[in-house]
């Protein structure tokens, strides 16, 4: 607990008032200290490893983060409403195996069929989460933990625990194709990012997400259908799990029933590193983007440097804590 708990922002605003642009800039930096942390990590990595800054490698990083990125964006919606979605890894695996079953071998269906099946699977399971959480007030942690287990079981049941490979080339394009020099998964991730950013920033639904997370009672009294908003964020998360399922199957060329175990931790980590509060109502999707990138750059950079895996874990954990520490201390010192 910082000592200034009771002091409002007055101190922050007054000295800044004189200087328009520099104030905006410093505001920006304060809200996005995590960007600085990110740039700093990048700078260090590019000094140590000559390969880091190559276009090729940067594209690699983007491609590598795209799946966690898509999941983390769905997670951002959920966490903004004070919720949590632990089932993302399982939902992704389930969607990927359902989609793959329509895209494998010689009887592969028309490309839109597996795509739709994957998205619908994710959406449906996410909607079940949303329905039970919104309707029966089951704590999101418990509901989505239950779903983590149930969806995983269903994934195994669906294809008897066997992976599905030999996927249709058109389908694999989702994960391996390149359009205008950009890998398709990266384009998908950026597309999802832009739509979500726009939604949270400019649409009424976006306002409602923040309101429900910031003060559900106030949202309710203002005539917002809190249940519907709650339901919708889990459905969105589910839908994005579906998309991630398509992406992972297409990228690795196979749908594995055991894929995505523990992915929820990375997705939540990205959101929280990005400054979104688990207490709801506060945070931004841009933060999540940089949270995702920090995790991705660390994984990539430490691999590039060939740091031994034991030390990698120590270093990665330490840097994440440090980055957030710097970010938060900027906030409280100013």
């Amino acid at each position: 607990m910082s000592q200034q708990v009771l002091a409002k922002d007055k101190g922050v605003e007054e000295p800044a008032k004189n200087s328009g642009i520099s104030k905006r800039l410093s505001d920006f930096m304060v809200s996005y200290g995590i960007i600085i942390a990110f740039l700093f990590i990048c700078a260090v990595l590019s000094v140590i490893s000559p390969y880091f800054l190559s276009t090729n490698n940067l594209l690699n990083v983007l491609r590598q983060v795209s799946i966690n990125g898509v999941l983390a964006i769905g997670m951002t919606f959920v966490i903004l409403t004070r919720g949590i979605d632990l089932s993302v890894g399982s939902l992704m695996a389930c969607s990927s195996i359902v989609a793959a079953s329509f895209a494998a071998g010689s009887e592969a269906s028309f490309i839109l069929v597996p795509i739709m099946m994957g998205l619908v699977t994710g959406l449906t399971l996410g909607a079940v989460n949303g329905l039970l959480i919104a309707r029966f007030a089951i704590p999101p942690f418990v509901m989505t933990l239950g779903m983590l287990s149930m969806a995983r079981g269903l994934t195994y049941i669906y294809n008897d625990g066997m992976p599905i490979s030999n996927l249709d080339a058109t389908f694999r394009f989702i994960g391996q194709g390149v359009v205008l020099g950009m890998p398709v998964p990266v384009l998908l991730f950026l597309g999802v990012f832009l739509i979500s950013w726009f939604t949270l920033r400019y649409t009424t639904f976006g306002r409602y997400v923040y309101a429900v997370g910031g003060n559900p009672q106030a949202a309710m009294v203002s005539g917002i259908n809190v249940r519907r908003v709650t339901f919708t964020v889990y459905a969105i998360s589910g839908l994005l799990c579906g998309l991630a399922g398509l992406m992972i199957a297409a990228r690795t060329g196979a749908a594995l029933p055991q894929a995505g175990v523990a992915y929820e931790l990375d997705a939540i980590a990205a959101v929280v590193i990005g400054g979104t509060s688990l207490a709801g109502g506060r945070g931004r999707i841009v933060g999540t983007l940089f949270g995702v990138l920090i995790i991705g750059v660390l994984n990539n950079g430490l691999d590039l440097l060939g740091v031994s895996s034991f030390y990698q874990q120590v270093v990665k954990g330490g840097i994440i804590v440090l980055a957030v520490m710097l970010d938060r201390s900027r906030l409280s010192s100013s």
Partner: protein
Amino acid sequence: MSNNLLLEASNITKSFSGVPALENGVLRLRPGSIHALCGGNGAGKSTLLNILMGVLPRDGGSIKIEGRDVHFSSPKDALGFGISMISQELEPVPELTVAENIFLGREPKKAGFIVDYRRMFDQARDVLGELNIQIEPTVKLGSLSIAEIQMVEIAKAISQNARIIIMDEPTSAIGERETELLFEAVHKLKDRGAGIIYVSHRMNELFRIADDYTIMRDGTFVGTGSMGDIDRKYLIDTILGKELQEEFSKFNVPGEREILRVEHYTRHGEFKDISLSLKEGEILGIFGLMGSGRSEFLNTLFGINAPHDGEAWIDGAKFTPRGPRDAMDAGMAYVTEDRKGNGLLVGSSIRNNISMASVKKVSKLGLVSSRKEAKVARLQVENHQIKSSSIEMEVRHMSGGNQQKVVLAKWLQTDPNILMLDEPTRGIDVGAKREMYRFMSEFSRNGKGVIMTSSEIPEILGMSDRVIVFRKGRLAGELSGSDLNQDNLARLSS
């Protein structure tokens, strides 16, 4: 007449876990009128109003709007019928801007789903401007003081253009100046033909603006009529169900010994160069307009924040608290202004709240004696007439005024010598106020001292031996004796 009514609620009943909160709620609202809903703390006012707004479901009774029976399942329905409400528990969404809060749920839109920010900010500016509220619509609500948040909520309710506006204690957190702004707005609404249901424990206000009254006691309807037909004493006595003796009972006598001395206290951006002293047996009032820095000063004195400059002494000994614990050890107690934000554990029992700042007193070797703790809690509940089903009741289920009493009880339990009260009568009823005043006198009679801030001028005048006036974070003057009057307060503070 009944056909002309904007709203008619009869025989509304409501109980919580089998405990009745409302046994016979009645309210008849005429269009173009201001209707005072009166009653002591826990009388069931908020419960009734929440039912009218669709926040709570009712157990029984009927609600008619312009003669039509209505059943609201959520506030959305009520809003659809042209009802809006300023609820007693402020409901801000701290991370959204002022404008977003004002227009929450009815944002100006482009293309059906995109928020038209330009229009929203413009409209918010208009709404605030019309009410003469000087708050930027683009700042986050969370950065405002409680008073400012209250003003935003007022702006929000008014801007909804409702036919029926419910105001549950809209003035409990704001000063006289802001109250005037509110009254102007309320009159405009009334002239437009809207009906306003107004709840306040400040009797002066009711007589100034209300046309009709309804009195409730213990969840039952007691009477209704025209404000013009009754006087202050009748209203108070009917609310309480018994006669009230004098309102301000003041019998403390300030002594000579200085128990607290502050010199040149400064915190940049909050207040500057504040010096004052408190004598034993004295009640020291601090007056100022909203945002003048009174609360910040008290926070600093209590060790919550560190001063950037200045010194303080308690009983002649240097006092440099590193935190509230030090202040408490030096004999201070501090009833903060924001009871929900930093006063209460709303999810815990009355018992836990009361013992929270003084657990050690009911413990031995780190072990809490539940028996002692319960005894202490029961004693406080009795002394302050805290209305509750038992000491195990969760504080969030209590009425606002009773919550305030719990905060006071918590601090008294620490057995302080210097009691700092920031807006101590916020939301408590006339009976309880009188008890509070009695208590303050009683307390300071025993060689202890009280520092009190209040935005209610009569209260400040009635209770203080001496008043320090703050203006924009600076000491504007000190008043006592015959200088202590309304005009001087107004002059110094603005």
